[in-house]
């Protein structure tokens, strides 16, 4: 095919694909954020949102295949500790260590998954929670991991392709690129045969197994990919914070991930984005109330979580995605269980 023709083809494809145009417009807007957000406070909040989106998206991918893990925060921690140890103790290249952080988190997920995934749904969740506690204990106990004070002086990423890192804006662009890559991968998976298999397993694992789906393989793969992105997010986090402590990977991080995932809606690939953006907007807005005590934040979040579970179990994405349907007469109603068939 001649280049002119293929170019024309791309242009016509763009013209008719309004969704793609909107996506590109949003992407350009996102890349322009630092030009109109000058306060470092808001830039930091945006960076937090971006790495949280990576964590929640990985968690949701596993959950869509019926793998309810309660340890995403420690896989995030495994990534952070791997990067910190390789960069500070062995002086490795940052990018190589970051990749290794993801691979290491994913490899531990594969091992843990192989042992624990013989348990169904909630029992797997409980045992991953126990695993998380043990890992936190190890980080707190052994001097190799720096005990309670953790690891300090984690350097910024090395210069790559002439790009220098270290400023807040550079961290923003790094986080944005990582989050966009994560969401693109999640979107591709959702549309692929693999994503379809995962949804089948999430709906009814026994039926999927009897139809010849290798449930164990797909479940571990989903867990593995989710943890890979959690590990990469952890590597970013370690450098962005400059130091890591076991306290950064405690139970409250899991609670935030769960909250974002549930409020965003676990059946939609964009749910994590909605959940993180909306809940961050709410929690940031709350701090503007005069005499607001940050200690009551968890109460408000807990009540929100329960109300959403009781009233909108499919999350905010179901509300957002139903909006186009309001303008059409008969919209097709997609109805499946958001959490799969988990009753025993």
């Amino acid at each position, binding site marked *: 095919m001649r280049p002119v023709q293929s170019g024309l083809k791309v242009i016509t494809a763009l013209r008719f694909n309004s969704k793609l145009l909107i996506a590109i417009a949003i992407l350009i807007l996102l890349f322009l954020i630092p030009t109109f957000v000058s306060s470092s406070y808001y830039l930091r909040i945006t960076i937090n949102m971006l790495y949280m989106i990576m964590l929640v998206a990985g968690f949701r991918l596993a959950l869509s295949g019926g793998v*309810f893990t309660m340890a995403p925060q420690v896989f995030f921690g495994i990534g952070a500790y791997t990067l910190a140890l390789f960069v500070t103790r062995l002086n490795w290249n940052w990018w190589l260590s970051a990749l290794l952080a993801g691979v290491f988190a994913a490899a531990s997920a594969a091992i843990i998954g192989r*042992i*624990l995934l*013989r*348990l*169904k*749904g*909630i*029992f797997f*969740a*409980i*045992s991953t*929670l*126990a*695993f998380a*506690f*043990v890992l936190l*204990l*190890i980080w*707190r*106990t052994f001097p190799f991991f720096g005990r309670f004070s953790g690891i300090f002086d984690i350097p910024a990423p090395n210069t790559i392709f002439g790009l220098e890192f270290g400023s807040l804006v550079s961290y923003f662009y790094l986080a944005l690129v990582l989050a966009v890559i994560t969401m693109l991968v999640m979107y591709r998976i959702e549309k692929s045969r693999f994503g379809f298999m995962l949804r089948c397993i999430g709906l009814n694992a026994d039926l999927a197994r009897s139809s010849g789906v290798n449930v164990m393989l797909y479940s571990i793969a989903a867990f593995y990919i989710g943890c890979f992105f959690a590990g990469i997010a952890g590597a970013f986090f370690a450098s962005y914070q400059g130091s890591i402590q076991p306290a950064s990977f405690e*139970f409250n991080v899991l*609670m935030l991930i*769960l909250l974002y995932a*549930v409020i965003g809606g676990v059946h939609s690939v964009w749910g994590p984005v909605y959940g993180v953006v909306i809940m961050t907007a709410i929690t940031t807005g709350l701090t503007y109330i005069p005499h607001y*005590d940050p*200690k*009551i*934040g*968890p*109460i408000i*979040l*807990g*009540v929100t*979580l*329960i109300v959403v*579970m*009781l009233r909108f*179990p499919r999350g905010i994405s179901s509300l957002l995605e139903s909006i186009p349907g309001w303008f059409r007469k008969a919209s097709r109603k997609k109805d499946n269980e958001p*959490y*799969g068939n*988990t*009753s*025993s």
Partner: protein
Amino acid sequence: MAQIIANGIMLSFLFVLFALGLSLIFGIMRVINFAHGEVYMLGAYGVWLFTDILNLNFFLGMVISMLAVGLLWVILERFILKPFRGNLLPAAIVTLGLLWIFQATMLVTAGSANKSVDFPQIFQGTVSLAGATLSLERICTIVIGVILTVALLLFLSKAKAGRAMRAATQNPDAARLMGVNIDLMSSLAIGISCALAAAGGVLAGGLFYINPYMGGPQLLMGFVIIIIGGLGSIPGTIIAAFIVGFINSITTSYLGSNYAGMLVFLAAIVVLLIRPKGLLGIEEM
């Protein structure tokens, strides 16, 4: 050595009181209560409120605390947990929300500082027994633990309501056809379970410290006990509670409490690898 054994028995009974409730709630409602550690914490704060602030007798405070916490959870079950019965993952998320709410509430109202309550004067001494010095508080804890456990076992095996409850655990549909009121049984089960966990919290409050985060480690131990013992099996839960209690007391005195957590988890992994349904579990998890 006798010291370690006595500590092991005491810890085991605290675990029994906690894990039996977790198992009972699961058996009837098919719900895992992630806020069970907060039930334990609320029980401890209840007795602190009644004895330190309102100056009531410790045991009276304990009974009131058990009743109050039990009633609170019967109400919560009716309005929040009922729609999620039998639907494990959403129920887990909702109870995690409750965990968050209770922890933050206690942090705001009572503060993060450690609180302590004392057993009554007559239990404040020590006795020497087989070469070990045991505080009377610990003996009192063991006695209360035995009384409550035996009372629950008798209730489940002899009383009509208890037998109906076991029937509902085994087969909810068949039990309903036989005229067992499942809603009533669920309320009763969650009331009893939470009262027992609250009693555990009260005793732990008398022995150790009370703070808003005390439920977390207890919840983890409760889960490990359930994994080892097999979910829904009462004898399995009791045996597993003793295993975990003794691992805890032995490792803590020789190596330190951090290693106890690791070892207990390893024990759970070994059980899972050899026997995925737990020691005495009936149902594949």
